Structures are given as C-alpha cells and as structure tokens.
C-alpha cells in the first residue's frame, strides 16, 4: 500500500511535466494528453504483469491436466492436456513481444523454450532408470526441458499420440517437466512483481529513480527494441530459415502443428505493447498525439502482418513446400512492420521522449 503514494506523486509530477511539454507541441489538440508515465504504468500492469501471472496460472493448469492424464489415461484427458499446452503457448508467445528484463537476464526463456528437443538424449533418459523428479529435471540440459519435450509426448508425430501409448516413464517425465515449467513461470512473475528484483518498479520509475532505466527514453527504446526483435525473429528467423532450406524439420512446434499460431501470437504480443490492452494506454497514444499519420501507418502494418498469417491455410511445415507465395507474403508483411518500427518509431522516440 505504501508503494502507491510515491507512484501517485510521480504520476502527478510527470503529468504536469508532460502537460507543459504537450502545450508546446503545435500539432496536439488533446487537452489531456496521455503521459509517458501512464503508458509505462499500463504496460507494466496490463501487459507484462498480467501476461506473466496468466502464464503461471496456465502452467499450473497444464501440470494438473497432465496429472489427471496420468491417473486416468483417456484420450479426452489427453485432449485436455493438449488444450492447456496450446493455451499456455498463446500466453507465452504473446509475452515474447517484450523479451527484456528478467526473462532474458535470468535465462527464463531458454529454460522454457529451447528448441530443438534432443530426442537421442530423451530416449536414453526414458530408457534408463534415472529418477525423474523435478530436482532431476532441473539438472537436465535445456533441450530436455520446457515446452517442446512436453509437446512431443502429448502430441506425438503429427498429433498421432494416443493416451494409451504414453508410457509410465513418459508420464512421470511430463509431470516433472510441467512442474519445472510452473516453477520457472512463478519465478518469472515474482521477478516482476516482488523484491528483490521488482522489475515492474524498474519500468514504472524509468527516468524517475529506476536504476535500470535512468531515462524514459531508455525504457521506450527497450519497448521498441522488443517489438523489433520479435518481428525479426519471426520474419527473419523462425519462418525464413525453414522456408529458405525447404526443410520442415527446422520448424519450431511441429508436433502440435502450432507453429503458425505461435508466430502470429508473437506479433500480437508486439501489437499489445504498441496499442496497450484492456483499456490501458499504449505507445500508440503518444505517437498519435504527435503524428497521427505515423500511428495510422504502424497500426496498419500491425494489422496487415497479423492478418497475413490467415492467408496460409496449412501447417507451416507444409506451407514452406506448398504455399510458398503466401509464406513469403507473411514474412514480407512482418519485415515491413519491423522496418517501420526501426526507421519510424525509433527516431520518433528519440525526438519526442527526451526525459
């Protein structure tokens, strides 16, 4: 409760500062312009904290579903676990729209989302009598942990796995994997929400006492950088590499056939940072107040990139062979967005967010 007071005070102070600035800007007709502080606060609460909390809850849910599957190995329970896996992926992939802070500093990303899975080592592990408790899982190499080994077991090749086919050791492995995943997600959430790291405070107090972001421009550049990076990773990496090599084995979530949904959620995650969610303010509010044309352009590029995924009607593993035109169009749309974020939004931030 105590923390609210300085936050309110900061909002007041920055509110006045921003008003002063905005009144000097001839293009601005809004009486109460959205402050940089408000965008940071809304990003922190509505986008970052909210995503990581949902991720923690989704991980616990997946763990419960896998335990249920272990107790009662029916195909319905298998389907429930698959659904939970996909729900969790949606939240995670969207959170990749802002891959900075503890998620990268503490390697939570590779802990959860290393690819590819090491099937050779997995076979050895499952064939052995090595214990598979959570503490054992934590000592395994990253390519035996996280989303993708779970995906491999619950979906199987092209989604062909039946509940009855899953061995006792596979189940034990999955229960511990999903518990390990839950631990990682909880740690990620706590690193934003609580001491000692309390990264939420680092973002909210950017330029007003934050040790990580000594100026507001720093954090806005980090937000822009996060959006640019994920566009580059999708358009220039995750889609492009298998496309260029015409190699379905290079596609990231092949067992669930979820790759395209993953990619699309990545870009939606970046859009969430730009627009804000749940009524909160986003970077767009600052851009639109000063340069409506730029805001229109960026929003248009986000929409075009996100919608372009719907032009691909088969899984991405198939699309790189059979729908190359559509695949290329999607990559082009994502890269067009990335280039505009780099060449339009970054200079806008440098020119307009000076404190």
């Amino acid at each position: 409760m105590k923390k609210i007071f300085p936050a309110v005070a900061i909002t007041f102070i920055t509110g006045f500062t921003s008003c002063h600035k905005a009144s000097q800007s001839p293009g601005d007709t809004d009486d109460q312009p959205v402050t940089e502080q408000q965008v940071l606060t809304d990003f922190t609460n509505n986008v970052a904290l909210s995503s990581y909390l949902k991720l923690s809850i989704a991980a616990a849910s997946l763990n419960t579903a896998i335990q249920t599957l272990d107790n009662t190995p029916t195909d319905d329970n298998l389907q429930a676990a698959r659904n939970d896996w996909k729900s969790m992926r949606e939240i995670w992939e969207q959170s990749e729209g802002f891959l900075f802070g503890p998620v990268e500093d503490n390697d939570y990303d590779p802990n959860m989302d290393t690819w590819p899975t090491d099937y050779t080592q997995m076979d050895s592990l499952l064939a052995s009598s090595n214990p598979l408790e959570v503490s054992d899982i934590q000592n395994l190499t990253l390519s035996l942990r996280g989303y993708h080994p779970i995906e491999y077991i619950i979906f199987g090749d092209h989604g062909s796995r039946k509940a009855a086919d899953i061995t006792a050791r596979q189940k034990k492995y999955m229960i511990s994997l999903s518990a390990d995943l839950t631990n990682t997600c909880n740690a990620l959430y706590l690193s934003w929400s609580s001491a000692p790291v309390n990264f939420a405070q680092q973002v909210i107090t950017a330029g007003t006492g934050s040790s990580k972001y000594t100026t507001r421009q720093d954090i806005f550049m980090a937000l822009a950088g996060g959006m640019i990076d994920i566009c580059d990773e999708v358009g220039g990496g995750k889609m492009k590499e298998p496309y260029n090599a015409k190699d379905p084995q290079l596609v990231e979530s092949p067992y669930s056939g979820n790759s395209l949904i993953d990619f699309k959620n990545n870009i939606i995650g970046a859009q969430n940072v730009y627009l804000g969610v749940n009524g909160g303010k986003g970077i767009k509010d600052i851009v639109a107040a000063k340069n409506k044309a730029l805001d229109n352009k960026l929003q248009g590029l986000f929409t075009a990139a996100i919608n372009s995924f719907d032009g691909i009607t088969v899984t991405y593993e198939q699309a790189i062979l059979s729908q190359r035109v559509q695949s290329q169009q999607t990559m082009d749309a994502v890269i067009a967005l990335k280039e505009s974020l780099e060449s339009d939004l970054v200079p806008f931030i440098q020119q307009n967010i000076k404190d």
Partner: protein
Amino acid sequence: MKKYIITGVLFIMVFSFSMCHKTGVFDSDDYDDRLSGGAATVFDATSKAFTHSVNGLSTRDQHVHDLGDGAFEQTFVAAGAVRFGGLGPVFNNVSCISCHHNDGKGTPTAGFATSSLLFRLSLPGVDEHGGPVAVPGYGLQLQDQALFGVACEAKVNITYTDVPVTYPDGSTVMLRKPAYILSDQYTPMPANYLLSPRLAPPVFGVGLLENVPEEEILSFVDNKDINGDGITGKANYIYNPYTQKTELGRFGLKANTSTIQLQVATAYQQDMGVTSYVQPKESVYGQTQDDKKTDDPELPDSILNAVTFYVKTLAVPARRNTTDPDVKRGEVLFNQINCSGCHRPTLQTGVNVTLAQISNQRIHPYTDLLVHDMGAGLADNRPDFLAGGSEWRTMPLWGIGLFDKTNGIPYYLHDGRARTLEEAILWHDGEAKNARQQFMQLSKADRDRIIKFLQSL
C-alpha cells in the same frame, strides 16, 4: 576591373584553403567521439546493443550474417539428430548464446545451463609448439557438462573470500577473490595441474580488432620500459593448428588465439564438442567418453564460415553522454593517470577490400591487444604460449558501460570476480599498479568521474 581581381583573389584563396583542408588529416576534434567503431558503430543503448550487424552490408553479406546469427543462437543436441547434432559427449554449454549472453558477457558460474565460466587446464611446461601441455585424460579445457549417460570431466566448486581495500581518504571497498576446487573427476588427475578461469567475453567489434595491422600492435611493446611508465606489454605469439603457423594472438583473455575463425571453431570444439573443418577432432579425442563416431566434422563448413562472418560483422555500440562535463573530466583523468597506457583509446584499422565498414577505420577499443603482468592477485599461474601466469590481454573497454543492460547483472575481469567497475579497477596491479595507485589517490568525486566516463563507453 578591380572588383574582378578581388573576387578572383578571394576565390583562389578560398579554393586553396579548401584544398589544404581536404588534403590534410583531420584533427582529433573533427571526429565524432561517439563513433567507437568508426563506420562499424551502431546507436543502440538497450540490452540488444551488442547484437547488431554493421550498417550497409550487401544483400548477400547480410544473408550470411543472418545465417550466422541464427547459428550463434542455435542449441545443439546429441549426435544422431537430423539437425544440429554433434553436441558433446562432454561440453561446457549447448549454444554460443548460452555463454555470450546477448553477445556480451555472462554469469561466472560453472556447470549449469546459465553458466558462462570455463576452465583451461594444463601441466607445467610447454608442448612442441610452445603452448600449454595437455593434461592426460582431460586435454586443455575442463568440460563440466555431459550428455545423458556420459561422465563429465569434473565439477568446479567456486567460493569467494572478501578482500577489503581502503582508500587514502578512509573509505573502504570489499573485493571478492575466487577459489576453485575440482570434484567428481571422472579419472584421476595429476596433482600438479594448472587451472585458469575464463568468463565468456563480448563478441562484437572483433572484426575491427582482427583488422588492426600487426605492426601497429607491435609498436606498443616497450620491452625495456624506455618511457619509464612501468608498462612494457608483450605480444603473444601462438600456434594456429589450422594454418600450422605461429601467429600473433589477438583474441581470448590471454591473446592465445590469432583469428576469429580459429576462435569460433575452437569454441565449437572445446565448449560444445562440435567439430568443424578447422578443428576436426573431438575434444574428448583419445578419452574414454569418445563416441568413436565417424561423423566429423559435425558442423557444416558453411555454418562455421557464417558464424565467423557474423561475429566479424557485429557493430560496436556508440558512446553515450560524451558532452557531459563529468564524463569529459573523467576521460582526461583516465589519460592523466595513464589507464590509457594499456587501454589505448584510439587505433587505426588497416585496409580491407572485402568489408568497407571495418577498413581503414579510426576506432576506440581501449586496448593495445598486448598481454601485461596484472599482478599476483589476478594471476592464474598458468602460462599460455608467451603469456605468463600473471599476464592477461588488455580487455577492450568499448561497450563496458552497457554490461548492466546486456547482462542484467554485470560482471567484470577475466573471471567475473568484480561486480562493479570500481572493483575491477582496484584489482589492477603489476604493470597497472601505478595507474591504480593514482586512481586511489584521487578524490571520491574524481574517482566517480572516471567511472562515469567508463559508463559512457
């Protein structure tokens, strides 16, 4: 008529002065001192500051850079996989990025997925090429992780002891000195082994450093300390097993590697157990963990070349706050107390016809690429070719002010023992003793200015 003559004379004067100006060399004031990497500089101060390619690559070069970027981040898995196989059997980590966090430094722990510290091993003496002597059963590097079912070579337990340092003004700083104890050796190790910790260094800007002419580096050597500043400096000449020649070492924390290609290939081989055409033998060659597979080289030639090109074309982040009065004063003090005697602010790269961005550039890496005696406190007591047991290569300081961004928690020095720039300075001894003593005699305000200057790099 007079008017024409005056105009004519004025024109000739202006023209001749412009000509003079053009043909002359710029004053140092005429360069933008933010451009640490010359044309290979990038303006980004976020956590991704070390990850950008130099500007203006051709489409083809950008394609190769991007391929290398993907491979640098790629996790490797056990041999037998259709893609990205060849990890191990023993290794230190599973991808380049696992240690070189955001293309920068990492965390000084060993044996975990998040670890960036590795240990070189040897026995006293020199081998047939003047290099360190391999430890039977272990080689020249300790691999502290292994594939499932395989014995890693050993585990390393790290402990720290507090070492207080007191300034003449009475204020105290607590340093920490690491100690390393091996356990779980898979096979007995001779008692007289030598161990050297190495924290993964940042990888950007190395294309520029590779392009600094050898004679420029050698010109910094002052064997007999003729200028009397206590700094001599030594070039480390090493054996390159690929070219089978003795070459000037530039890379690695003891300058024990001559080229980026050798650095990358040796990291794949020793750190990850992935063989290539440059380093075709498994790190466990001749050891009991050897899988005896005939799949070497495991890394496609094109990938080794792409990763080499990737690091060669990583840009240097621009300086920040260069006009801040404290930063400017800190820079003057940095030079006055002769930190710049080894951390040389300005080098000039040679001509490189294949890559304009690194060719003939005035750069500010703050290194002389030589090895120097750094005193007993930092010594690993493990010689590496000509670099002695207390000698380390001058760490380039460009980008050092961004470590807290790129790494979350910053660590400094070869083993990551220093948690702040101040701690790192206070460890300096040997040839850097004079500079450190002068730093300690400065007022707190001036010491802070030097730190602020370093943070602007």
